[in-house]
């Protein structure tokens, strides 16, 4: 069974979010991701960006509103969003 490696965002950054509403913690499993770029292109608040290998990285974790667009549209099930209580 392939064990994924993950890029997690540090929890402390979330506390600096000024806006109200739900927040999410984004986790990317790089070894399941095939780099299609769909999550990066369609994230409504611009949380993600592509790195040099065309894999997504979390650049603005505080902007995630837990809308779950990315994890319902990832063909590889390589990204998940967990709702976070602040």
């Amino acid at each position, binding site marked *: 069974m*392939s064990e994924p490696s993950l890029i997690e965002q540090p929890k402390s950054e979330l506390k600096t979010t000024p806006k109200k509403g739900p927040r999410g913690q984004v986790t990317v499993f790089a070894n399941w*991701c095939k780099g299609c770029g769909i999550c990066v292109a369609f994230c409504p608040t611009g949380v993600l960006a592509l790195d040099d290998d065309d894999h997504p990285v979390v650049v603005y974790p505080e902007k995630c509103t837990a809308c779950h667009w990315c994890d319902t549209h990832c063909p590889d099930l390589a990204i998940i969003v967990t709702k976070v209580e602040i």
Partner: protein
Amino acid sequence: MPTQFEHTEYMYLRPTKKFPNVWCAGCGIGIVMGALIRAIDRIGLEKDDVALVSGIGCTGRMPVYMDFNTIHTTHGRALAFATGLKIAKPNMKVITIMGDGDAIAIGGNHFIHAARRNIGIAAIVVNNAIYGMTGGQYSPTTPIGAKAATAPYGNIEPPMPICEVAKAAGATYVARSTVYHAVELDRFIEQAIRKNGFSLVEAVGYCPTTYGKMNKLGTTVDMMRLLKENSVSVTAAEKLSPEEREKKIVRGVMHDVEKPEYTQLYEQLIQRVQHAQPANPDKP
């Protein structure tokens, strides 16, 4: 398997199967798989009560990844295998997973008869408008004028309207969505599985590797944008002229009625027969 995360989709994947999945980067089939799992999870079905029956092609490779009773059958015949399984185990939820060529080209006959019988099977057809696995030959849903490996001068055959055919043949639930509208899709799949009768969900998602490349539709992201911009809801489609409607993908529930389901009808038949024949059935 990232099992330390109690994320819905991961709860239903086979722990012994190798990932990442076999499809190309950005292929919509993976999105349909996620939608299917979410639908099954919301209904609260036991894994042992679910059977996935698939045909041949890229879409047919879906069931192996999921922790249910899964069978990958022959090209076009998934509904026939599913019919036998459903009759043997009427209390199981039997879901067939087919591509467009599998379901209505070679499988066309079984498609209309399963709908006609209204047997309790939920058919999910992933329509990528091409024969992807074999390298991009045209299928019965390839649009007119599109290029394909066996239509180098452009396709001249009109596409088959899968949903209309299912409705005409007798299906009791018919819906269409796209892989861009993944959340709407999983809602339709949930309704289809809950339905006690033959239900069809068509999930449109063009193949980026063959169809997209041969027809210069851009990257996978461009093609997702295309699905978003080129589709309309059923209600909005009614306000369009027929020419405008033809160019759009119409999304929504097309048909939702109640009719007697086949396995229940046969069960009633058995009761009638056995009631009328109390003599020892072993003796000829």
